[in-house]
């Protein structure tokens, strides 16, 4: 049997409840913004500097993009130093060409029988800024390319980038493949030479004294409420 509806909540009370909810959410957001690293830092920059990442920008490739039924022509002589953005924006241009590429080693050296796979990023964090959150500049996502190196080059690698760690910044020379004929990997460089330009090392973690106090205060309140809830349940069961 359906419950009789005789007492709908007054709209003003609903509005008050909604306002209270908005205030609570605003409080949570405000607290989080206050606690975030580099909060209030006038040097904090939030912009995506790697313009090649904006998909609206027209590509300017010496070779046309891949399209059904269209065969790529031979391209004119090209400079060898490239970025990952250029390789991914114009893959048919660079396919099979020797290139120079520099960036930060990331993650792991995946050793195989004849060599190893690397991930090399050439975004803003790799070239000068350093990893987040050691600085306040948010420069968008990562950009990079997979690289295959022969075993003879593995020992040159010292440090890999990761959490709180800047990896070696390296310059490598090799052939870019749209699809590597040996490994069947997509968009990779088969390197023949690698040299470390800047050795990696630990990145500083920002100090966060406010967090300790906030965590203790909120944690104590939460613990108090949990105890109160547990007691209420015990009384309820009796």
């Amino acid at each position, binding site marked *: 049997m359906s*419950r009789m509806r005789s007492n*709908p*909540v007054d*709209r003003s009370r609903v509005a008050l*409840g909604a306002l209270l909810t908005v205030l*609570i*959410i605003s409080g*949570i957001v405000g*607290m*989080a*913004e206050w606690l*975030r690293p580099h909060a209030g830092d006038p040097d904090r920059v*939030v912009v995506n500097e790697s313009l090649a*990442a*904006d*998909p*609206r920008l027209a*590509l300017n490739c010496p070779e046309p993009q*891949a399209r059904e039924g269209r065969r790529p022509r031979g391209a004119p002589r090209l400079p060898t130093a490239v970025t990952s953005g250029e390789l991914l*924006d*114009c*893959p*048919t241009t660079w396919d099979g060409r020797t290139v120079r590429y520099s960036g930060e080693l*990331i*993650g*792991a*050296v*995946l050793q195989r029988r004849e060599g190893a*796979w690397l*991930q090399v*990023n050439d975004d803003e*964090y790799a070239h000068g800024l350093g990893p*987040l*959150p050691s600085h306040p500049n*948010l*420069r*968008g996502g*990562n*950009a*990079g390319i*997979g690289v295959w190196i022969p075993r003879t080059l593995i020992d040159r690698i010292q440090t890999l*980038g990761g*959490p*709180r*760690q800047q990896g070696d910044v390296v310059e490598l020379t090799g052939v870019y493949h749209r*699809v590597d*004929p040996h490994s*069947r990997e*997509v*968009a990779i460089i088969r390197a023949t030479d690698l040299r470390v330009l800047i050795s990696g090392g630990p990145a500083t973690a920002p100090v966060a004294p406010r*967090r*300790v106090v*906030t*965590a203790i205060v*909120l944690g104590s309140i*939460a613990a108090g409420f*949990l105890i*109160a*809830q547990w007691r*209420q349940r015990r009384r309820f069961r009796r």
Partner: protein
Amino acid sequence: MLFRPDRIDFRLIGFYTGRVVWGVGLAMLIPATFAFAIGEINEGLAFLIGSSVALIVGVLSSLTLRTRAPLRTTHGLATVALAWLTAPLPAAIPLLLSGHYASYLDAYFEAMSGFATIGLTLANDLDHLARSVNLWRHLMQFMGGQGIVVVVLTIFASGGGQVGTLYTGEGREEKIVPNVISTARFIWKVALVYASLGTTLLWSALLVAGLQPLSAAYHAVNLFMSAFDTGGFSIHSSSAAFYRSPVVEAVLMVLMLAGAFSFALHYQLWRNRVDELGRNIETRTLALSLLTLFTVMCIGLARTETFTEFGSLFRVGFFQVVSAHTTTGLSTVPGRLFVTDWGMLAPAMLVAAMAIGGMAGSTAGGIKAIRVGVLAKGLRGDIRRVLLPENAAVVETYHSTTRQVLRSEQVRQAAMLLVLFLLLYLGGGILGLFYGYDMELALFESTAAASSAGLSVGLVRPDLEWPLKVVYIAQMVIGRLEFVSIFALAGYVVSIVRGRV
């Protein structure tokens, strides 16, 4: 008719929403413990703060809104919608405090992308993100894939019979066993069995790929949650391509497909009814769709001469189409190449695969294979009625656990949801046009968000226009909950304003 809600309606919806937030708060203690254990103190404190906020809100609602009133269907639906909108609020706190997100909106987007198992990310410098924060991103996908409402109310308890209405509100229609709590616990059992096997297999494959044992274990745990719950988050910005391993890709494909299978199908397989795989309308639809879309994709990629030999074409293309069709979003190809090197036909097949999605009652999103299968059967029935004599009785049947007669009501419901999903995909695409993106990019990304697929051509990035971020968030939750819960919540809001619906 839905009248203006009274106090009991608010108490019910608020109470159960608070329980879900409370559960999210408890879940955050897992990455908090991990963070302190590995020396990520700042992140550990951030998780404690987020957890405390969630627990305070959850306990307060429990203490002040507790009621014995029965939970009706409309309450359950509205609760699910509100819980899904509320849960990312505290979950976003440790993300923002990590220093990798530009604003609270970005962190909320990431949290919603996690719970709704989308996989689109707004993280800045993901490759240097703290390990505990990365674990939390993947854990959100695990919780969301199982259904956060069901997670909390079955594991943390006393939902009792009330859980039934909440279960259906999360887009699950089929009860595998008569009791909803038992159904939810079976879902967990399947997930944990796959977790043990899948993580072990992945760990082995990652060791062979060249990772160190501890690192391989960490990657395996996170990759499993991403693949089985068809989420698509990855530890590194290069996604599954980071591992450069056909073995890892093969294990991931098995897990993605397992995640896209309905839990009802898993129950049949659990009971050794392997023939269900060949007879079930959804597996047939999924298989046919995969094969067709993959074939057309191969034709497209051959025409662009992106791949010149079948081995590489099969390895890369099949992984991508499985990832899209299961709405996972893991990728072995940089997303930019879909635009610059894959022509038009192959990316279009990925869009179609994402749009269709996986099976109903699975962790996958999209329109769902059952609806596509039912519509196809309905169409076949209509064609037969036209061709056969007027007095011929045409009965279409389909097999889903048992043989069932196809009713016109089922065809109508499937058609309605198909139209709603297509409108959702198109709506986000049109807004993308407004901001200057090409139609194919806008439609690709909109479909990825609304179908919870998460493959990206680069449109979703940290400096994306904020209205698009808001729209994609809305698409994520609407697509994940399959409209009905959102309509119920909207109905309550309208009834507050108008006095009735």
